[in-house]
């Protein structure tokens, strides 16, 4: 369970990223966060594993405070939170296997990880994770030889070997075509349903958010302006979020053509 209590973030230049956010996200939810660029979606997501420090309030993950955690504690918390991003964040020159295996870093001592002394189980976990995203045959391929969609699946595999309970996905499909986007999101959906992992996704496509998630949160200028099921996200709510009803406009465009 992730909870936000009166969370605010003011950037050093005075910009308010988040304004008094109060949210509780239960285990096994698939939450899509939508909103305009600059609305605070990324800030919200990155605050969960403290890649961004918040300035007020408190965030807890599974009852442990992320905000108050010391260095060591934070590393421990981060082990349980997987993250995938728009840019895949893979070491492009390294093999798929190495990239996936790096998801286990948080479980190893410095010296063991430098020498590459990973356990048999972890190699097995890597194989399993790659199998579940359908890339087992690419184990020794250099990551930059893969397509964008494949690279994103490698980064999903990395969060799987990490055995995280929570997966944060920062615009995972923003740089992918619609077909690949759907595949990635259904992969995430499968992980959510079959392994019961909590998933938080930042996403621009309202249609995809509605199609895949169990809950939608909308942000506008650092505030939560909508929080509900995909069914509740109607034209009126969209107008509130985006200033106009974007889904309806699309339908009209489709009618005209």
């Amino acid at each position: 369970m992730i909870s936000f209590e009166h969370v605010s973030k003011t950037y050093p230049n005075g910009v308010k990223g988040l304004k008094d956010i109060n949210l509780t996200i239960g285990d096994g939810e698939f939450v899509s966060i939508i909103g305009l660029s600059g609305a605070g979606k990324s800030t919200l997501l990155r605050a969960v594993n403290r890649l961004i420090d918040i300035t007020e309030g408190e965030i807890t993950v599974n009852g442990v405070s992320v905000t108050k955690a010391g260095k060591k504690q934070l590393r421990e918390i981060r082990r349980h939170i997987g993250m995938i991003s728009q840019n895949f964040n893979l070491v492009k020159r390294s093999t798929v296997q190495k990239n996936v295996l790096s998801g286990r870093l948080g479980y190893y001592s410095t010296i063991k990880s430098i020498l590459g002394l990973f356990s048999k189980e972890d190699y097995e976990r890597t194989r399993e994770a790659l199998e579940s995203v359908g890339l087992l045959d690419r184990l020794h391929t250099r990551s930059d030889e893969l397509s964008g969609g494949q690279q994103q699946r490698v980064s999903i595999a990395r969060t799987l070997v990490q055995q995280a309970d929570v997966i944060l996905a920062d615009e995972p499909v923003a740089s992918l075509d619609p077909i690949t986007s759907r595949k990635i999101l259904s992969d995430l959906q499968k992980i959510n349903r079959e392994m019961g992992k909590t998933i938080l996704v930042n996403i621009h496509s309202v249609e995809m958010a509605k199609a895949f998630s169990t809950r939608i949160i909308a942000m506008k200028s650092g505030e939560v302006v909508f929080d509900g099921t995909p069914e509740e996200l109607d034209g009126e709510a969209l107008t509130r979020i985006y200033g106009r009803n974007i889904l309806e406009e699309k339908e009209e465009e489709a009618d005209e053509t």
Partner: protein
Amino acid sequence: MKLKDTIHYNWYKHLFVVFLLLVCVLGSAALTEADFSEVFENADQIGIFMGRLAHPDFSYIPDILDPMVKTLKMSVVGTVIGVLFAVPFAFLATTTVTRNPVVTGIIRFFLDIIRTIPNLLLAALLVAVIGIGEATGVLTIAVFTFGMVSQLIYESIETIDYGPIEAAESVGANKVQIAVWAVAPQILAQIASYTFYAFEVNVRASTVLGYVGAGGIGVVLNSSLALLKYERVSIIILTILVVVAIVDTLSEMIRRRLA
């Protein structure tokens, strides 16, 4: 068509630059009392010198092979030692790895000082401290390589993709793990490439280190010059030229493969 409509519309600026350059050249010539006529008056000396240089003493080759090989050995050992020390310091010289501007600042200041010492001066200093010989040459090359390569590496660390660092951080990796797993793989090829580049530079530089007593081919070159044996000087220079050319070509080939 008027002049101001052409690409020469600010001709007076260009003229001013030319004027400034002329003032600088003539001014510095006057200050250092340089006299160009001397160059031409001594032309016959140049002729004699060049004439003797044009007759390299090939029979001397067996005697210079050994010092030449020594020079190469000095370069290899010096380069390897220098790079080995440069890598950890380069990592500490970036805030990407340390997240600590103070540590990074101190390390960089230290590296800056090392780099400001000219090669030959360093060799002369080390000769005074350690004594004449190849060991001094190796140490000089190592220190010089350390300064040069550490800067090249930390500058390339600053241009890496930040994504993998964030990813490693988000799985709970510590700083050392981030350096080894997210930073190092991105720059390994570059480090290898810089190593060969440094080796290239070092072979060239080490040929003259013997001048101040730091061993290798420079010693032979120095004594031949002092004894006015220009035929020998000529063959030494030719040998150096050939070796440097071979090393440069090889290293360039390898570096291209690495990129």
